[in-house]
């Protein structure tokens, strides 16, 4: 690995004594080496497991690596060779954004339950025994040579050009490739294939849209496509150049996307295709909009879907359909219709997608650039069809060797495929997964692959952007990158070509002198460089190539040719025929399976941060639940956590019930990604695995619209909620500023009304220099919770586990409160409003409010601490001094915002007394969740790891503030004020929507100053006189049709 600091521009003014000595030393060493062998020195990044006390790495400066992680460009911050934070690479217009899983990737990297080295699993017969790469490699290679054509490589979706090239090279060695993705957009793929001849789904340009209509759309639900960032750009009511967009969502289960809609209409999944067709009918035939209005066969295809007809079948009022269609037609060229959420995976999904396609065509969405085909994403990287075919071959004994890399079908294939049974028929199975997961347990060998932060790779991003995945740390265990393994085995098996070249480049050329530095040991490195050399038409080893390569590593990306967007033709008869699948639901109740917001498909199920992350809507952590509509829930006499049995006919499952606000009455839902049995001690046994429940039909795995019956079992398992009451009655408790666009235009202060403070006898703080402050724009915030994980990573926040959440001891410094706004009522709501009456939760208006320490000027926590452990800094921070804190918890009691977190247990090291630890199983749990090696390596050395018995809370990332001060000192700059951007706290860094603005209120021209004095700004609980430093800007809902 190359050192990155050789790339930082050389600034002679900043050369201090240390720097001089270091540079001098490096030059001397380089000179010595150069004179010996004329080869650049090989540098390795080796982390310290135990940091020598005397060692000071520079001035505690971090090193940053640009890399790409699971399809999204990230900047990885490392300290002493350890990655400690993954943040978005905002410099790239990549069309990708980070998901919660990206932010939490450190917990995957340092997961103690990853395989430590190759093992012989022996198909789960007996305990696994240690093996070696050499032994496994020899066996695989000998089989590859013998059994050409009967060897299959099963991977997850392959989006890396180099990996694809290596796999193509492997074909020469007789290896077939099958890719499978557990959560695949099957319906869009089919529809797009039929409609346009290419399975590329266009990317919506939400920043250009005045009107967005979603039909079960899920663009805010934890995807990596970065649409949340674009969506937020138009959600503020007072931007001159970007008037507020309007978002109408039709959906069944209240999703994060739906919660952000201006208008939300409940439609069960299997009725969505009808609704979409009705909208198309009204827009195209009713309003005569767009080029399709005069096309005869479209009129025929849509004839059956008049709003009146659809209204009769679905219960959605024809008036609503007509209004939305009218608004769409009126916004032609500025409107876009989106589907593609979990609801599309019903039997009628392709019809839904085709109808949406027709709508978008009619609304000129392609022509106006609202749907960008060039930034489209190929939806066929991994399909269930391919897995189905493979399984059939395996059952027929046609596969003799199966190499599995990055795929776990024993866990996530539909039950009807019987993958485990088929696997038993394959004579030789090697798993290249990273741990002894469900599939690896049934293999002969597990040859564990590295985490993406440990190995080389690359990634094709939308719009021709290519990105390099460079390692930020040496592999922690005896693992190798997937690309390394494939190159190695392929070349050894005689695949030849680039594979062979890459492998031979890792060995010293024959005849080189003995003292020559060894070539780079990674075959993947040589292979990727070979690929890039070809792409850039350069020769590896030349200075031109090296400089291009270094620039690539520095910026993290390279702009390739943008794929041309083929003009979209009107759909042919084959596509229109798909509309026939839009039929009313036959079953009384249907089930939707949807990707878990944090865990998605469950690959990272052993990640404590993700497991503990409370779902933005349900607020459930550590598990999932059957979402049931409030009315049905009440009629069944259920309470949250009551175990219910779902009977799908082909399968049954028992899971806890949850009263899901805004759910369609005829639908229930369960998340994917849970119920792992072999992912490690943290995630195994949490929740229920619903992947096997999917039905195979038409080459798709149906995950929605599944007919289901629901039965009570009489048992109860409490759900780990990270929130108390769901409802807020803003008449009484004006704690969230919210209003409508109409009201806002009349009175910009609307929604911020609250009781005023009385006079205060406390003297005001002078704040002579800086005054740190924050503004949170609730109109931009979509409640995704990336700030929560970003903060957790930055501030060394422990994981408390399911029991900890149930005990009410969550530790997160920032949380997203989710409320359902109680509608205005004649008279007032009684106390029953807090229990979520049907009038509030059936058609909920959702409000999100990020809640963190408000750093009050008159902080009630400061006055009550007898030990002076929390006090006010002169730059406006409410500081918590861990050393002084003795833990009376008085401050937490007296905090009106309840943002202070107490270390009820020891989370930072293992407690070892046999007598006492035997009294409570939680000692073992906390040890598993927090203290096993090498988990500590994720800790940020700038932030104290707290011991038990002390209070902690948001510090406004004081370490970053102090670092900025120190930097100003080093640079000889003034420290009285800091410009915008000098300090960016972790939550602000992680926020894709730009909802959080942090800065120095006293600095001239500070953005936070402007926002804090905005008419929309509201400081909470003014009547208490605590004077928070955080301003919340009103959540404005666009009610203007």
């Amino acid at each position, binding site marked *: 690995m190359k050192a990155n600091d050789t790339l930082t521009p050389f600034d002679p003014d900043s050369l201090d004594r240390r720097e001089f000595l270091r540079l001098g030393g490096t030059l001397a060493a380089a000179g010595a080496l150069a004179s010996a062998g004329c080869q650049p020195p090989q540098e390795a990044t080796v982390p310290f497991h135990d940091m020598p006390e005397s060692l000071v790495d520079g001035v505690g400066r971090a090193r940053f690596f640009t890399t790409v992680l699971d399809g999204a460009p990230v900047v990885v911050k490392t300290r002493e060779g350890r990655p400690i934070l993954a943040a978005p690479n905002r410099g790239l217009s990549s069309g990708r954004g980070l998901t919660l899983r990206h932010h939490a990737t450190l917990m995957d990297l340092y997961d103690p339950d990853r395989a430590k080295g190759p093992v012989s699993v022996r198909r789960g017969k007996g305990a696994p025994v240690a093996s070696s790469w050499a032994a496994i490699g020899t066996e695989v290679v000998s089989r590859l040579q013998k059994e050409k054509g009967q060897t299959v490589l099963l991977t997850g979706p392959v989006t890396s050009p180099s990996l694809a090239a290596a796999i193509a090279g492997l074909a020469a060695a007789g290896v077939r490739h099958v890719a499978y993705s557990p959560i695949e957009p099957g319906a869009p793929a089919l529809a797009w294939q039929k409609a346009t001849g290419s399975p590329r789904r266009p990317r919506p340009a939400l920043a250009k849209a005045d009107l967005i209509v979603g039909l079960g759309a899920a663009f805010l639900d934890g995807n990596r496509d970065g649409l949340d960032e674009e969506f937020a750009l138009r959600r503020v009511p007072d931007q001159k150049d970007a008037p507020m967009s309007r978002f109408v969502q039709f959906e069944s289960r209240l999703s994060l996307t739906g919660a952000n809609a201006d208008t939300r209409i409940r439609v069960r999944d299997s009725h969505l295709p009808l609704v979409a067709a009705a909208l198309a009918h009204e827009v195209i035939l009713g309003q005569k909009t767009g080029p399709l209005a005069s096309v005869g066969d479209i009129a025929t295809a849509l004839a059956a879907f008049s709003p009146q007809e659809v209204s009769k079948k679905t219960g959605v009022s024809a008036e609503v359909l007509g209004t939305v269609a009218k608004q769409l037609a009126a916004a032609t060229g500025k409107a876009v219709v989106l589907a593609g959420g979990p609801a599309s995976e019903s039997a009628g999904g392709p019809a839904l997608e085709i109808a949406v396609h027709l709508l978008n065509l009619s609304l000129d969405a392609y022509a106006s650039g609202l749907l960008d085909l060039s930034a489209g994403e190929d939806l066929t990287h991994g399909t269930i069809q391919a897995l189905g075919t493979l399984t059939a071959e395996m059952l027929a004994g046609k596969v003799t060797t199966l190499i599995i890399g990055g795929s776990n079908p024993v866990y996530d294939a539909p039950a009807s495929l019987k993958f485990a049974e088929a696997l038993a028929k394959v004579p030789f199975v090697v798993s290249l997964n990273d741990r002894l997961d469900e599939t690896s347990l049934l293999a002969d060998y597990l040859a564990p692959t590295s985490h993406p932060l440990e190995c080389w790779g690359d990634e094709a991003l939308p719009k021709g952007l290519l990105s390099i995945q460079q390692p930020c740390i040496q592999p922690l265990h005896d693992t190798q990158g997937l690309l390394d393994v494939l190159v190695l085995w392929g070349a050894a098996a005689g695949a030849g070509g680039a594979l062979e070249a890459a492998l031979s480049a890792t060995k010293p050329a024959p005849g080189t002198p003995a003292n020559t530095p060894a070539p780079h040991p990674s075959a993947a490195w040589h292979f990727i460089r070979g690929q890039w050399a070809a792409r850039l038409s350069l020769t590896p080893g030349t200075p031109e190539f090296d400089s291009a390569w270094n620039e690539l590593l520095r910026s993290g990306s390279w702009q390739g040719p943008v794929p041309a967007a083929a003009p979209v033709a009107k759909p042919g008869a084959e596509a229109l025929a798909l509309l026939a699948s839009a039929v009313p639901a036959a079953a009384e109740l249907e089930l939707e399976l949807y990707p878990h917001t944090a865990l998605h498909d469950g690959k990272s199920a052993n990640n404590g941060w993700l497991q503990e992350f409370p779902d933005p809507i349900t607020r459930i952590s550590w598990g999932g639940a059957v979402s049931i509509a409030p009315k049905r829930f009440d009629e069944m006499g259920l309470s949250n956590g009551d175990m219910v049995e779902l009977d799908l006919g082909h399968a049954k499952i028992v899971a806890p019930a949850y009263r899901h606000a805004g759910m369609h009455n005829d639908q229930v839902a369960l998340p994917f990604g849970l119920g792992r049995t072999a992912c490690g001690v943290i995630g195994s046994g949490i929740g229920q695995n619903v992947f096997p429940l999917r039905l195979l039909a038409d080459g798709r795995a149906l995950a929605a619209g599944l007919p289901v019956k629901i039965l009570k079992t009489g048992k109860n398992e409490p759900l780990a909620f990270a*929130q*108390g*009451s*769901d*409802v*807020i009655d803003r008449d*009484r*408790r004006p704690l969230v500023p919210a209003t409508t666009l109409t009201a806002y235009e009349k009175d910009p202060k609307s929604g911020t009304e609250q009781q005023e403070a009385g006079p205060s006898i406390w003297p005001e703080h002078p704040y002579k220099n800086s005054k740190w402050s924050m503004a949170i724009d609730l109109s931009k915030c979509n409640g995704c919770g990336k700030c929560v994980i970003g903060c957790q990573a930055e501030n060394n926040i422990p994981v408390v586990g399911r029991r900890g959440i149930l*005990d*009410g*001891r*969550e530790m997160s410094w920032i*949380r997203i*409160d*989710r*409320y359902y706004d109680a509608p205005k009522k004649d008279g007032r709501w009684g*106390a029953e409003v*807090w229990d979520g009456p049907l009038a509030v939760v059936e058609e909920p208006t959702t409000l999100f409010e990020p*809640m963190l320490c408000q750093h009050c000027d008159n902080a*009630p926590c400061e*006055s*009550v*601490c*007898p*030990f*002076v452990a929390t006090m006010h800094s002169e730059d406006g921070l409410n500081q918590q001094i861990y050393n*002084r*804190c*003795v*833990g*009376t*918890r*008085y401050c*937490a*009691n*007296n905090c*009106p*915002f*309840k943002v202070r*977190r*107490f*270390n*009820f*247990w*020891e989370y930072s090291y293992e*407690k070892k*007394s046999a007598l*006492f630890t035997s*009294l*409570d199983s*939680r*000692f073992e749990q906390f040890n598993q969740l927090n203290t096993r090696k090498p988990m500590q390596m994720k800790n940020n050395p700038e932030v104290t790891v707290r*011991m*038990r*018995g*002390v*209070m902690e809370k948001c510090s406004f990332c004081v370490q970053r503030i102090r670092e900025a001060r120190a930097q100003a000192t080093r640079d000889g700059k003034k420290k009285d004020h800091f410009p915008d951007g000098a300090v960016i706290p972790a939550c602000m860094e992680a926020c894709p929507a730009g909802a959080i603005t942090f800065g120095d209120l006293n600095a001239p021209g500070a953005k936070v100053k402007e926002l804090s004095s905005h008419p929309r700004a509201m400081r909470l*609980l003014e009547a*208490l006189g*605590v004077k928070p430093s955080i301003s919340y800007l009103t959540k404005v809902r666009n009610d203007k049709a």
Partner: protein
Amino acid sequence: MSPYATVMDDSQLTGQPIVLSGKGPFGGDVEIPEPLVTGGKKWSDVDRDICLHTEQFPTKRWWICFAAALSMLGVLVFSLAYLLYAGMGICGVNGPVGWGSFIINFVFWIGIGHAGTLISAVLFLFRQQWRTGINRAAEAMTLFAVACAGIFPIIHLGRAWFAYWLVPYPNARGPLWVNFNSPLAWDIFAISTYGLVSLAFWYVGLLPDLATVRDRATHPWRKKLYNVLSFNWTGSHRAWRHYESAYMILAALATPLVFSVHTIVSFDFATSVIPGWHTTIFPPYFVIGAIFSGFAMVITLMSLMRGVFNLKNYITLNHMEAMAKILMLTGMLVGFAYSTEFFMAWYSGSEWEGFVFKNRAFGPYWWAYFIMFTCNAIVPQIFWWKSMRRNTVVLFVVSILVNIGMWFERYVIVVTSLHRDFLPSSWGMYALTRWDYAILIGSFGLFFTLFLLFVRVLPVIAISEVKGVMDPKVARSAPSDAGPAAAARPQEV
């Protein structure tokens, strides 16, 4: 005519004054109170009756009680060791409810500790002579209750081993000073002052009695020990004169403490911003509640002492009735405070206040509020009937119920205010864990262990003061086995 002149048996007491018809100076009636010591006791009987328990080998009944108390104390010691090892996680406190059973127990025990000083000091200054029968035990109860209470603020800390940082003294930690804005810092002064003054007051009162024990002692070491404990009390006039003025001064000093301690404890809550805590009624409300609970505990203990140590002649039914009256009065005051809180919550028009009180009475903790209100405001109403005031079983049961009610009062204040405060998102629930229960039970173990040791080694009734309220005409004569007193003589247990 001297009061207390009559020789009466305990069973003959009526609680009404004795009416002497035609004995008045102008031929009218004279009413004299019933004697405070019954059974025609002589002064020497008093010495023997009271000192006897310190002079003989403990009875089986004592051993049983002591074993039970000691095992409960053992539970406390083990639980505390575990608590120090594991941290507050083993208890029920959590996110919204940062204070739980430990603070409840703290306020509960401090409240119990109020009756002693009230009886000793306030009733002394008001010349309530019936106090003499119960003041010693009540003061001891105070000390032990304060000792129990003192544990809790320390063990409820996350890092209890740094508790001494609360003491403001010049130190090498910066120096690290305490925050005088914090009521918890005030607590340190209030409680330590109260504890020290109570101890001094109690010990000064003990001096003549320790001398009595010394004088009766036969073993030379016992004589020496009690001599040292009594500061070589000579019983001279000079000594008595100094003693009486010291006692008076201490009584005057202790009197404001009765009101200050619980006032300051109430500030722990009243100075916060939490609805349900932030109320100006708290100081008087807490003081009255404390006196109420303290008297209830005194009644509990006196019922036991009357029974177990056969001190019915000294702690008579009239004593019990007097305490029952105080219990009823303070019970009504407490009930009045509960109602006032509700009125103010409504009258203030504040959403937060209104919600908290509605939530207390009708929310998920309605049962705690119900127990509190019933036990404290309703049950003592039974003492409107004189027969109930003089029924020892009723007294005992009511005193226990009041103690339960007062524990729940603190439960209601601490838990229901915290569990649902400003932000509905942060609402939560609280429940005691087995360790909370173990430590609560253990604190009773500590209390009873100390109390049982006290009754073994020290005179449980203020001998010299009791002698002062006996009619010399009756009490001066030599002890005799004959006469009406014989039947009422305590059995040597």
